[in-house]
């Protein structure tokens, strides 16, 4: 079969698999977020931890629980990394410096998984398992918990309760993420992803040289790395490494895993608000942006524009032979449109427009379909903005899902959409203004600027992928990008939970002839336009200086 039909078939198989899982998985998540029943094991856990599982929380309490859990996670992980030289299975790695340990602890807690370290030379197996992989689970669960609270804000009326964070966290981790991870970790291991506790095994190669073959509990970490849209690689080369992603089959499986929860959550949303058509509209917008991006990145990579790639005859720099251009492009678009940031090929060497699109994907705010939970809450905030804009055009008080969008709601929505661009543009500006930080670029000219822009876009949107040529293991970048990750994660969470509280308090407004229907093609078009305009107006100047300048050169 030729490369082009194979590429199309691969994408079609992926869409088919995602469509098959959309309903059952979405319903399962809705079930576990709304059920009043606790499993026996969960009851024991709540008792040990000291949680009153039947008491719902007001939004400030829910928020405090999220923040306390995340703050302790950062501290715990920081301690674990700094002390790892004294722990079991540390493989003799050197002690990590304070700024890099801070950056890593924040990175995994915020579901970013930006890595300024190189996995095989900086992390022992125990920290990978008991530190990093645990955050892969719970940071994903935190995202879904926050969107659950927001959806309850729409579905509940005249209450100040938005759910119980501890119960949400436990059920999402143990009833959703854990069983799916066990299943897929085994499938990955059966296909060649390593799963052992070995250190480096010395071998004499066929031509008489020496090689160290790495080991590690990789399959177990790989499954949740993708399922939780985390993206932090066990090894430096991430999902390009043959031990993380050995074949074309595991590759498609990994793309499927990183998309499956974000694309199922709109079903959960539709079910919880009692109108599946609302979920269909949201998933349609997500699907449109995802399909457009996947097709365009593939198109540009096949064209292989750029002087060096033209000279080579194909855009294969930074790509693996077993994946080729189509499977690498599909992965790149999917990982940057979710908040995953795992890579099976290195975006720094992508064509100017192909690589530029990966930056643009993140700038969309990671909503198509976005990270686990964070994608849906980002999209719902933009839906609120879209309804408001439509209300302005016809001069009516806007309402969404029976809830009035007044001044208070719009303030939270506006603050949400201003947060990330502010962090990205201020951060990039500071880095470019400082001569020492400019020197971190590997490439020069417009492409070097893109490396810095990519870094801050990735950190603030909690993606974690990079134009990886840039040198970021410096005190300044570790600290600045760490702050970008913290603010980029938790400020939006504050605004989303405040919005949830404010919506839950309202009594429902019955739909009237003047209510804008928020399902159907009209709303899908309106919401897509709002997404494009908000992002386009905000980021166009920065994009013009980076990828667009390079592409038109």
């Amino acid at each position, binding site marked *: 079969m030729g490369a082009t039909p194979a590429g199309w078939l691969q994408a079609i198989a992926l869409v088919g698999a995602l469509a098959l899982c959309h309903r059952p998985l979405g319903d399962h998540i809705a079930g576990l977020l709304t059920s009043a029943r606790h499993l026996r094991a969960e009851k024991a856990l709540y008792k040990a931890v000291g949680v009153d599982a039947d008491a719902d929380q007001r939004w400030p309490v829910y928020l405090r629980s999220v923040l306390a859990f995340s703050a302790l996670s950062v501290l715990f992980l920081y301690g674990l990394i700094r002390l790892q030289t004294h722990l079991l299975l540390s493989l003799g790695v050197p002690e990590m410096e304070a700024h890099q340990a801070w950056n890593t602890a924040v990175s995994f807690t915020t579901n970013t998984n930006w890595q300024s370290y190189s996995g095989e030379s900086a992390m022992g197996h125990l920290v990978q398992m008991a530190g990093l992989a645990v955050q892969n689970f719970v940071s994903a669960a935190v995202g879904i918990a926050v969107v659950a609270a927001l959806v309850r804000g729409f579905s509940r009326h005249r209450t100040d309760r938005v759910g119980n964070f501890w119960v949400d966290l436990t059920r999402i981790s143990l009833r959703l993420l854990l069983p799916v991870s066990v299943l897929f970790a085994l499938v990955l291991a059966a296909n060649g992803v390593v799963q052992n506790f070995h250190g480096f095994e010395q071998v004499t190669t*066929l031509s008489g040289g020496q*090689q160290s073959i790495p080991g590690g*509990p990789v399959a177990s970490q790989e499954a949740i790395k993708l399922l939780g849209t985390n993206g932090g690689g066990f090894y*430096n080369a991430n999902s390009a490494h043959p031990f993380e992603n050995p074949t074309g*089959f595991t590759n498609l499986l990994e793309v499927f895993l990183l998309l499956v929860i974000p694309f199922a959550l709109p079903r959960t949303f539709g079910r919880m608000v009692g109108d599946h058509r609302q979920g269909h509209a949201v998933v349609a917008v997500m699907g449109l942006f995802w399909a457009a991006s996947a097709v365009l990145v593939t198109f540009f990579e096949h064209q292989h524009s*750029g*002087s060096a790639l033209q000279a080579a*005859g194909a*855009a294969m720099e930074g790509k693996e032979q077993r994946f080729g251009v189509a499977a690498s492009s599909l992965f790149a678009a999917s990982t940057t449109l979710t908040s995953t940031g795992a890579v099976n090929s290195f975006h*720094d060497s992508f064509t100017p427009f192909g690589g530029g699109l990966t930056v643009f994907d993140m700038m969309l705010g990671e909503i198509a379909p976005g990270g686990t939970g964070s994608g849906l809450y980002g999209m719902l905030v933009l839906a609120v903005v879209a309804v408001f804009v439509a209300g302005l055009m016809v001069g009516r008080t806007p309402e969404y899902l029976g809830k009035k969008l007044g001044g208070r709601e719009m303030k939270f929505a506006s603050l949400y959409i201003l947060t990330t661009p502010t962090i990205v543009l201020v951060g990039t500006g500071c880095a470019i203004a400082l001569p020492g930080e400019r020197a971190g670029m590997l490439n020069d000219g417009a492409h070097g600027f893109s490396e810095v822009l990519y870094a801050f876009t990735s950190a603030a949107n909690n993606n974690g992928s990079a134009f990886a040529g840039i040198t970021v293991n410096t005190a300044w970048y570790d600290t600045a990008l760490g702050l970008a990750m913290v603010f980029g994660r938790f400020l939006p969470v504050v605004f989303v939970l405040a919005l949830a509280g404010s919506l839950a308090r309202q009594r429902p407004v019955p739909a009237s002839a003047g209510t804008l229907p928020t399902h159907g093609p009209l709303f899908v078009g309106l919401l897509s336009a709002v997404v494009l305009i908000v992002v386009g107006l905000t980021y166009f100047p920065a994009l013009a200086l980076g990828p667009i300048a390079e592409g038109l050169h």
Partner: protein
Amino acid sequence: MPAFLRTHLTALRMLLAMTAILGLAYPLLVTGISQLAFPARADGSIVEHDGKPAGSRLIGQAFDLPQTDPDAPARPDPKWFQPRPSAGGYDPTASGASNLGPTSTDLLDAVAERRAAIAAFDGVDPATVPPDALTASGSGLDPHISVAYAREQVNRVARERGIPAQQLNHLIDRHTDGRPLGFLGQGGVNVLQLNLAVAALG
């Protein structure tokens, strides 16, 4: 106890419980099952040569001449099929890519140099050297090359070893990994397995 402190204590206990379940029990369970059900794969798909481990089927290797001067650049050994360029010299303790941009002059120069060097080494027209031979992979450990690049090296290896080219072409066919299920990824020739088969010919 103040509410602030109580929340943090709950958070700490929850984190420790999750660490025990997700950070210890889960990877141990997956390791146990994998080691029982498919130990060779879970241990890295190690291949042997003369009864000794010679690397992993999944991890690419360099096939260079023995180094006499450690500072001199590595020179490819003409008796072996050669892998793709690697940013890390096929060192699995330093996986990764070159990260050179699409318009980078460094990359442009590297491509031109590789094209000339490979054409001279394999005795072929520079225009026919395939793209995967001119570009470094993402992992720096790519175990595969394209079928085109393998075919291009046949005459050199045949001449160096005194083996008919026909026989080498047959080995290439045997060690080409097609697309899984016929349409996933891209497939290619596994260089280590091909070279093991070549070595077995004597």
